[in-house]
């Protein structure tokens, strides 16, 4: 709860609480996610805008074996309760499966060690077509200088392959959280262009949220916003300007 307050004060408008399930241990059951309303009686307002913060729930599956993926297909009732599903593949085959057939929103890439597999273009392109984004953890770069080197080198190789379809993720302690603009600047370090770096924190994350909602709803999601009606006077003003131009 402490971390969430820090997030809000720093300027994030939507936060996803992550549950990690590791399949190496036996008999892991998918638990029901903690509902956000249990944590906060009323969600506080984001600094700078007048909207309330959105808190989503997210599940990360650490898969090291193809049989673990069966869980995703088995439509356990608890999986549907999560807004975003992410998968963390440990082998090349699983990476391929995750990009091409698995029903997830994000593929997490481990940055703290030398990757056991190289990224290949075909599965990455297929993932992008399906709307799946890749994700990097940036907290190791803050903790330790060896981790920093690995993080940066893995991030750069990821950027080169996936053309910038990346979003970022932080870890547990409040002191290790960084504001959205700071993380966008880190994107510049990793080789993204400025607009891509900002998108990594804003547009891509929102796209992932919508992808999660699409997955829940079975065909598609369209967001509509009410537009105020145009006043009649505005329409008559336009021809007048046009007249002025032709006369001049």
């Amino acid at each position: 709860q402490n971390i969430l307050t820090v997030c809000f004060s720093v300027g994030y408008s939507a936060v996803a609480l992550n549950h990690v399930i590791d399949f190496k241990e036996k008999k892991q059951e998918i638990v029901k996610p903690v509902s956000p309303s249990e944590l906060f009686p009323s969600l506080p307002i984001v600094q700078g805008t007048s909207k309330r913060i959105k808190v989503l729930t997210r599940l990360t599956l650490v898969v090291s074996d193809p049989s673990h993926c069966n869980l995703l297909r088995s439509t356990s009732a608890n999986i549907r309760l999560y807004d975003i599903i992410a998968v963390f593949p440990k082998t090349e085959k699983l990476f391929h499966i995750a990009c091409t057939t698995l029903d997830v929103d994000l593929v997490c890439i481990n940055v703290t060690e030398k990757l056991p597999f190289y990224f290949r273009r075909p599965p990455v392109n297929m993932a992008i077509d399906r709307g799946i984004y890749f994700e990097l953890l940036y907290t190791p770069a803050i903790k330790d200088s060896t981790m920093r080197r690995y993080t940066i080198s893995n991030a750069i190789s990821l950027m080169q392959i996936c053309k910038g379809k990346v979003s970022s993720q932080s870890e547990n302690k409040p002191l290790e959280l960084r504001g959205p603009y700071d993380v966008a600047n880190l994107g510049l370090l990793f080789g993204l262009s400025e607009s891509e770096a900002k998108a990594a924190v804003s547009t891509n994350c929102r796209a992932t949220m919508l992808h999660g909602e699409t997955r829940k709803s079975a065909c598609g999601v369209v967001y509509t916003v009410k537009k105020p009606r145009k006043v009649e006077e505005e329409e008559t003003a336009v021809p007048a300007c046009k007249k002025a131009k032709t006369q001049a």
Partner: protein
Amino acid sequence: ARPNAAQFKQLVVTALRELHGEVGAALPVDVLTYEEKTLSAILRVISSGLVKLWSALTLLGFYQNRRCAFRVLQTSPFLLALSGNSRELVLD
């Protein structure tokens, strides 16, 4: 113990050296103001060095074995613009 102005400058230079090496540490950074109470400061750097400085500050995790975090509130090429925080603006 809160750092004073000189220690703060040392902190910034250390962050630059850790991330960008000697070339980064040589980047001319000025501390224009520093408030010990709120631990906030205004820094000035050449515009080509902004990315280096900002990333170095973001990734700084430890100083003298104590955990720390930098939060960049505003960046602007004009000093006057710092009086109004553009991140607080609301789009209706």
